[in-house]
Structure formats: structure tokens, C-alpha cells
């Protein structure tokens, strides 16, 4: 299938989703599922009134800040653990334990530690992201092909060339999917933490809309959150994904 056909079928899938939404609205009534058009109108009002911007900024700061901190910490620990076997053996079970704690439990703990506003959402994102990125970086270092390493030695490759042409591409093979997965989690966890905190950001607005039983408003905020995730993926990760395989 070529790119145009893929795009057309993708659009058809989204159109199908909209049709199903509209059908659900007609079958179940506006109290269960508001009309897509009504949601779109609410969304437009949200954006035009200037209410969306600050909420988006808060959620973006929570999600991206937590993701960045968790990714840097996770990658650093993963690379160090991959290079130093004893450290790796010590860190692996720790990260599995952290990964095993449900995000919702972290939200509760963070709310108790940091209070409903401020750092709690960002911290929850950080602990969710860290073990995912750690595992990717760790695997990326361990999965290096020793045959390629020997080839590089036979040609007397200096350390910098080995790093650039061998180690980084093999690391990115595992690290980039982990970063993308972690980023998708970051938005979800940030919004979830904000909803439970009942404070600021998109999550806080969703909590308010829920309190008013305003479904159109709730869905409008959800759509904004999804749009933010997609925009972020396209802007941040797609270029890296494309570039990662082009170095040598």
C-alpha cells in the first residue's frame, strides 16, 4: 500500500469513528453521548475563549517535564547498568518493582507527598516513565552485536567513531520505542493525576466538567488532550525516529 492509500484508509477509519459516535448519540441521547457537532462547538468555544491555552500549558508542563526528567534519569541509569553488569543486576529488579506499582497508586502517594497542585502530576509521570526508558536503554546497551564490535576493532576504529556509528544506533533501536511509549503514558498519567488532584490543567478541567455533568465539555477536553499527544509525537519523536537510522 502506498502512502496516499494509507492516508485515505486512515481518514476513512476516523470518519467511521465519527459516524459511530453520531449513531451512538442518536441511539442513546445527549445525556449519555453528546453530538459530535456539539462537542466540536464546545471545543471551539474553549479555544476561542482563551480557557484552553493555560490548561494545555499546565498539562504539557506536567507531562513533558515529568517525561524529560524520567527519560534522562532512566536512560542514564539504563546505560550505566548496561555497561556495568553489577549495577545493572542491582537496578533491574528495582525498576521492575517500580513498574509493578500501578500508576494510580503513585498518584495517591504523590498527592499525599506533594499536595494536589504543583509537583504531584509531574512526579507521577516521572516514576511511570523511568522504568520504561531504563529497560529500553539497558536492552539497547546489552543487545550490542559483538561481531560488529570486533569488526570495528579490526579496523582500528577510534572510540568516538564506535560510539557514533555502532553504540548509539544500536542503543536508539531500543531507546526510541521506549521513549515513544513513555511519552504516550506521560500524557495519560499527567491527565489522570490532574483529575484526581482536582486542581489545574486539562485533568482539573475534566474534573470540573464532570462535577457539572457536562459531557460535551468533558469530551472537548479529552479531544484536546489527544490532539496535544499527537502534536507532541509528530514534533518531537518522528524527526528523531527518521534520523536515528540515517547515521553512520
Amino acid at each position, binding site marked *: 500500500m502506498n502512502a496516499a492509500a494509507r492516508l485515505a484508509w486512515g481518514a476513512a477509519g476516523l470518519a467511521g469513528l465519527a459516524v459511530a459516535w453520531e449513531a451512538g448519540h442518536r441511539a442513546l441521547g445527549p445525556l449519555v453521548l453528546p453530538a459530535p457537532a456539539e462537542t466540536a462547538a464546545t471545543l471551539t468555544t474553549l479555544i476561542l475563549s482563551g480557557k484552553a491555552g493555560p490548561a494545555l500549558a499546565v498539562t504539557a508542563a506536567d507531562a513533558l517535564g515529568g517525561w524529560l526528567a524520567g527519560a534522562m534519569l532512566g536512560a542514564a541509569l539504563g546505560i550505566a547498568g548496561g555497561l556495568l553488569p553489577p549495577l545493572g543486576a542491582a537496578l533491574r529488579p528495582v525498576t521492575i518493582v517500580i513498574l509493578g506499582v500501578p500508576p494510580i497508586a503513585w498518584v495517591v502517594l504523590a498527592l499525599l507527598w506533594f499536595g494536589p497542585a504543583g509537583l504531584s502530576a509531574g512526579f507521577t509521570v516521572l516514576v511511570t516513565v523511568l522504568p520504561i526508558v531504563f529497560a529500553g536503554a539497558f536492552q539497547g546497551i546489552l543487545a550490542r552485536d559483538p561481531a560488529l564490535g*570486533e569488526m570495528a576493532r579490526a579496523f582500528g576504529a577510534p572510540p568516538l567513531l564506535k560510539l557514533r556509528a555502532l553504540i548509539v544506533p544500536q542503543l536508539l*533501536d531500543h531507546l526510541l520505542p521506549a521513549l515513544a511509549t513513555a511519552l504516550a503514558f506521560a500524557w495519560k498519567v499527567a491527565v489522570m493525576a490532574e483529575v484526581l488532584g482536582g486542581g489545574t490543567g486539562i485533568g482539573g478541567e475534566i474534573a470540573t466538567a464532570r462535577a457539572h455533568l457536562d459531557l460535551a465539555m468533558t469530551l472537548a477536553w479529552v479531544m484536546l488532550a489527544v490532539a496535544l499527544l499527537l502534536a507532541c509525537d509528530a514534533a518531537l519523536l518522528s524527526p528523531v525516529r527518521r534520523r536515528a537510522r540515517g547515521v553512520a
Partner: protein
Amino acid sequence: MLVFDGVTLDFGDGPVFDRFDLAVAPGRLVALLGRSGCGKTTSLRLAAGLVAPASGRVENRFRRTAMVFQEPRLLPWADATDNAAFGLAALGVGREARRARAGDLLTGFGFAPADLGKRPAELSGGMQSRVAIARAFAVEPDLVLMDEPFAALDVGLRRELQDLVRDAVERRGSAVLFVTHDVTEAIRLADRILVLSARPARVVLDAEATPTADPAAIHAAAATFLALPAARGALLER
């Protein structure tokens, strides 16, 4: 000159070499024949400095050594040109210059312009082998270590690449230490043929040879060669 002087090496499962001697002179293609597991590959790894002898001395006085492995060992994320240019990158040649030189070499090895930008996964086995050979010759080595580089290829392709190696050797005057277990390959390519015994490896036969591409001559020479008691004992008898 490459000299092994009284080399002893043991990986823990019996000695691979016990006071092993070997010398490779400049500009000659030396074939190293022997059964699987007799230490042929290890001798190349010693020559490349990838392993050190437990005792004795490996002295590689060649200015520049390159290696072609049993498998192509290409970087999967880099295109054919960057792979062929890897050795040049290791020497510090700039990106434009090394890509130009590698591209020229690959073109001489039968690469179409469209193939130069392909990744290894998009290339056939024969094309991958060409990239590996180009990577070695790109650094203008005066010693090339080759470890059964064509063992996985079909007969027609093997002959083509053997001719390519022979041609590169004659044009550049590089010395080659060529490991193989195929007598006809050794006769086809080599100026000198060494036969190694089973472990611990010793040179049991050291014969001068004249490379030839004529199939009838290769067959006749192989029959004569295998009739020699030393060759028969090391290569055929259990």
C-alpha cells in the same frame, strides 16, 4: 611482513597453537588450508591483534591491515557506501572524501548507482560480500586477512568474487592471508598454500603455487595436491 614466532595459545579446551611459526611476505596471497576448528580463524584474529598469544610473538610489520570476516558484518543502519567507507572513517578521512572513494570502489565491484544508497537488508548476499571486500580494500591495506569470506555463496558468485580479490591483489600488490577449507579455492587464488594440522596447529605442508582460473587446471592441481601424503593426512583422513 607478518611473523608468528613460537606462538602458544589455549582457550581452555586444549592448545590451539603450541610453538606455532608462520611468515607472510609482502605482495603474496597465502592460502591457509585446514579442517574446521584447527585454528585457521584464530591465526587471523592473532594477526589482526584481536587476541594476544599466551606466549611467543606475533609481529605485524605491515603498515595497514584490513580484515574480511566469514560473514559480511555490515552496519544494518548504514547504506552500502557508508559501510564500505567504515575503514576510511576509522582512519579519519572526511565524510565526503570517504564516501566518494568507497562509491568508486563499489562501482568498480559492479554496484549500480541506485545500489550505493541501499542498506544491507536490501542487498543480496553476494552484494553484501562485495561491500565487505570493498570496506577492506578501501583503506589501501598492504595486508588483508580473509576468513572464508565466500563459504556461504554459490559457486558462480564465489568465482566472481575470487576473481575480484585476485584482481585487487594484483592491482594493489597487497599481501593476503586467506583462510579456507576448500582446496580448489586455494589453488585458484594462492601464490603459496599452507596446510595446517589438527590442534595444536602446525604447518604440515608449505607449497608454492601459481594461481589459475582454468577449471581443468584447478581440478588437476587439486588431485595432485590431495595425493601428497601431508595434505591427504591433514585434510582427508580422520
